[in-house]
């Protein structure tokens, strides 16, 4: 059975389907995540009091993945298969491409991918990615509570976040074996159906 991958991306609990095309949230022109450009300065975030350790993020690279074929295995817990067909990698700490057809999103109860990255120097890096997705009435505004969208209402913002685990060879990419990374993921239908992942080192 083929179906729209957007319906597979829902992880976490209490989630309604991300109604495909129901809002502009998936269109590039209406991307509602915070956008601050391509700087590589660390971004720091603090707690409710100064004694709470701050957390920092710094952009390390981005990957655009073109997925292909959407198949579902109707096993007791349905299992999806969607190829990672290819795509570019760019950014300050890694450049290259997704090794073509090297793996897939083997979705089960959420996003669950295994595929290979090929760095510009030829190194192969395994990526295993998990993620969470949840629909809200409106985009996050610091200091304001997030309100989940109801099942039957369009989402003003879909928060799709990923936490990849990499296995890189010794050498210039080995930092990826011991650095926590979190990412944003955004699905685009235009001009070509793909998903963009922007990865940040947790400092």
């Amino acid at each position, binding site marked *: 059975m083929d179906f729209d991958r957007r319906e597979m991306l829902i992880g*976490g*609990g209490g989630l309604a389907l991300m109604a495909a095309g129901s809002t502009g949230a998936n269109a590039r022109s209406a991307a509602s995540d915070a956008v*601050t450009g*391509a700087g590589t300065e660390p971004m720091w975030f603090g707690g409710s009091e100064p004694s709470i350790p701050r957390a920092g993020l710094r952009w390390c690279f981005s990957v655009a993945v073109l997925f292909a074929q959407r198949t579902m295995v109707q096993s007791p817990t349905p299992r999806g298969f969607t190829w990672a067909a290819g795509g570019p990698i760019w950014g300050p700490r890694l450049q290259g491409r997704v090794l073509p057809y090297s793996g897939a999103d083997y979705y089960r109860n959420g996003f669950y991918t295994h595929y290979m990255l090929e760095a510009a120097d030829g190194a192969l890096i395994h990526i295993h990615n998990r993620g969470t997705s949840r629909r809200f009435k409106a985009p996050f505004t610091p200091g304001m509570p997030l309100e989940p969208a109801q099942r039957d209402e369009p989402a003003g913002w879909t928060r799709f976040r990923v936490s990849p685990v990499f296995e890189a060879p010794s050498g210039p990419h080995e930092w990826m074996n*011991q650095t926590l990374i979190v990412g944003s993921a955004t699905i685009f239908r235009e*001009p070509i159906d793909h998903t963009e992942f922007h990865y940040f080192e947790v400092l």
Partner: protein
Amino acid sequence: MRDFKIPDLGEMKRQDVVLDYAFQLKARYDPPNAYRSAKGGRFYQAIIGGTVRSPRLNADVYADSGGAFDTLQVGNGVRNINAHFMLKAENGDYIYVEHVGYHRPDGYYRVIAYIDAPTDGPYDWLNGTTFVVTATESSDLRDVVFSYYVAN
């Protein structure tokens, strides 16, 4: 291997992750155990207590509900964090917590937390959420403070 020509994807704008502080989990562990294994090494440490006191979550660590089942990287002292345990909230709800991340000899201890909570209760907001967590620990490794931030 099949070939793939990357098409023109148009302008790609970076979508940032914004962290929103959520709460601190103060955990108490038994002394750690580590041993060599065929795959490198295993680090085990039982969680025996702990608390979360915050406007957004009030809970205790459910004692002896799990702990760290980390693996050790070869030759560099890095621990791959793989922790599982339960919280019991003030209203009686059980909440599952999973930590995945890295503990390095230079003091870097960071994890992603995934949490499963009942969808019909006040802690449903924890579901479908990726947490970025900064951890600090005592010199005997038995007291760890986890500062949780929501990855928005």
